[in-house]
C-alpha cells in the first residue's frame, strides 16, 4: 500500500509516495533522497551518527519511521551551512579538530546544534560532555568536540549579550 507523505527537508517541501511503511527517516534520506551526509553507524539508536533535527529537536533518524513523521520539518547536515558560509559549529569543529575519520561528524554537529538550542548545557564542559554522550566517536575526538562546542557556545553567548546590551 502506498502512502503519501510530505516533509520539509532543509527548508524545501518534499512530497513523496512511500511504497513501504518500513522506511526509516535515515534510509529515506540516504537511499531515496540521496542526502548521504547523515550516516548509519549502528541502525539501532546506539551511536548517534544518524542524528538529525526534526521540528528543531535532535533525534536518531535510524529509529524514526518516515511515515510517522508526515508533516515534519527536517534539518540535516546538508542544510546547516549557508553556501560557503559554514555554521559556527562546523567552523569550530574544523578549528578544534573535532573529528578524525569524519564519519560520526555530521551526527556530532547536528547533535551539538540541537544541544545548543536545548540550552541545558551552556558553557559547562561537564554538561556538554554528558549532553553529547549520545554520539560515539571511535577515533576519540571527544576533546576537540567539547572545545568546538565551547567555542560555538561562546559565540552564541556573545551575540546574546550584545543583543541584551
Amino acid at each position: 500500500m502506498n502512502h503519501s507523505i510530505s516533509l520539509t527537508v532543509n527548508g524545501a517541501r518534499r512530497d513523496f509516495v512511500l511504497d513501504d511503511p518500513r522506511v526509516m527517516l535515515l534510509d529515506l534520506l540516504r537511499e531515496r533522497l540521496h542526502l548521504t551526509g547523515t550516516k548509519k553507524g549502528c541502525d539501532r539508536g546506539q551511536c548517534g551518527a544518524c542524528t538529525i533535527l526534526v521540528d528543531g529537536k535532535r533525534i536518531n533518524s535510524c529509529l524514526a519511521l518516515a511515515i510517522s513523521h508526515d508533516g515534519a520539518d527536517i534539518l540535516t547536515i546538508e542544510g546547516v551551512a549557508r553556501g560557503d558560509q559554514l555554521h559556527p559549529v562546523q567552523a569550530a569543529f574544523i578549528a578544534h579538530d573535532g573529528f578524525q575519520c569524519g564519519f560520526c561528524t555530521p551526527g556530532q554537529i547536528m547533535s551539538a546544534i540541537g544541544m545548543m538550542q536545548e540550552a541545558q548545557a551552556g558553557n559547562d564542559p561537564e554538561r556538554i560532555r554528558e549532553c553529547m554522550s549520545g554520539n560515539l566517536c571511535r577515533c576519540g575526538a571527544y576533546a576537540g568536540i567539547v572545545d568546538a562546542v565551547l567555542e560555538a557556545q561562546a559565540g552564541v553567548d556573545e551575540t546574546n549579550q550584545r543583543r541584551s546590551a
Partner: protein
Amino acid sequence: MKQFDYVRPATVAEAVAAAAQPGATYLAAGTNLLDLMKGNISRPDRLVDVTHLDGLDQIERLADGSLRIGALVSNADLAHDAEFAKTYPAVAEALLSGASAQLRNAATVGGNLLQRTRCAYFYDTASRCNKREAGSGCDARGGENRTHAVLGWSESCIATHPSDFCVPLLALDAIVEIEGRNGRREIALDELHRLPGHTPERETVLEPGDLILAVRLPPAARGFAAHARYLKVRERMSYAFAIVSAAAALRIEDGKVAEARLALGGVAAKPWRARAAEDVLRGVAPTADAFQEAAWRALADAKPSGDNSYKIELARRIVVRALTLAAAGTPARIPALPASPFASTSGAIHA
C-alpha cells in the same frame, strides 16, 4: 523487518479498536519498538501509530494537587519542564540519566513504561527465551548473566526491567491511566508490570488494545521535593543501562523521617518497590545506621540468578547512598552527570 500495515487512528477509540486486533501493536516514538522490530524480536502485523492523537502530550496540574503527564510527552520535555523538575526532582534526574539526549527527545512517557528488557538472550533470536517465545526455555540461566535479576526472578526468566524513569515514579506511587476495550481504568504503576513466574511472556497486566493515556502523580508525591534523588551505577559514565539504580525520597520533619520512599531499578523484571525498607525508616532519624538497616530490609529476599551475587551487595550500598544523598537535600539544579556517583554534588561519601 516484517511487512506491516500502518494505521493512523484519528481518535483514542479508533486506536483501541485497531490495536485490539491480533498481531497489532501501538507505535509511539518507536525508540524501543523499532529497535526490536529491526532485530526481529517483535514482528507485528500492524502498527497503530498514536503519535498524531490529540491531547496526549500535555503536562497538567490537577486541582487536587496531582500531576497528570500525557503518555506522548517526551522524556526530554518532561525532564526539562522547570516546574516538574523542581517538584519531582528524582524523576527528572532519572529521566536525564537514561539513554541519550536524542533518544530522550523522541521517547515518550507511555513508551518508557512499556520498554522491554535488555536481556541479551531476549534480544538474540537464536537463544531460547520464555519471554520472547513462551515455553522455549531460558538461556540466560547458566549463560552470561552478571547483570541479571536478583529479586523476583523465576526459573523461567531472570531478565530485568531497564527503565530509569519508572523507578522514582514507582516510589512516588504513580498511577497509570489506561483506555481499553471496556473503557477507561487506572491502576497503580506497581501493578502494571508483572513478575515472571511461569509466564514471563506476560510482562504487564495490559490487555490487547489497552492504551496508556497518562501517568499521574498523586498529591502526596509533591511532599518529597526537598529530599529526593536517583542514583544509578553503570558501566560507563553515560548512555548505559543501570547495573543497579535506586530512587530515594524522604519527607523529613523535625529531624526525623516522616515518610520514606524507596525503589530499585535493574534488579527485577519490574521496577522494585522496597516497602519493608520504607517502614523501618518511618519516624527515625536519617542516620547511616538507619539507612544500613533499610538497605538490609530492601534486599532481604534477594538471591543471585547467576554470576551476579555482587549486585545484591551493590544494591545495598546504592540504597544507603541514595538515602544519604536524599537526606542531604535535593540539589538546586540537576547535576551535570545526572544520577551518577560522580555527580559533582554528591559529597556524601564518608572518608
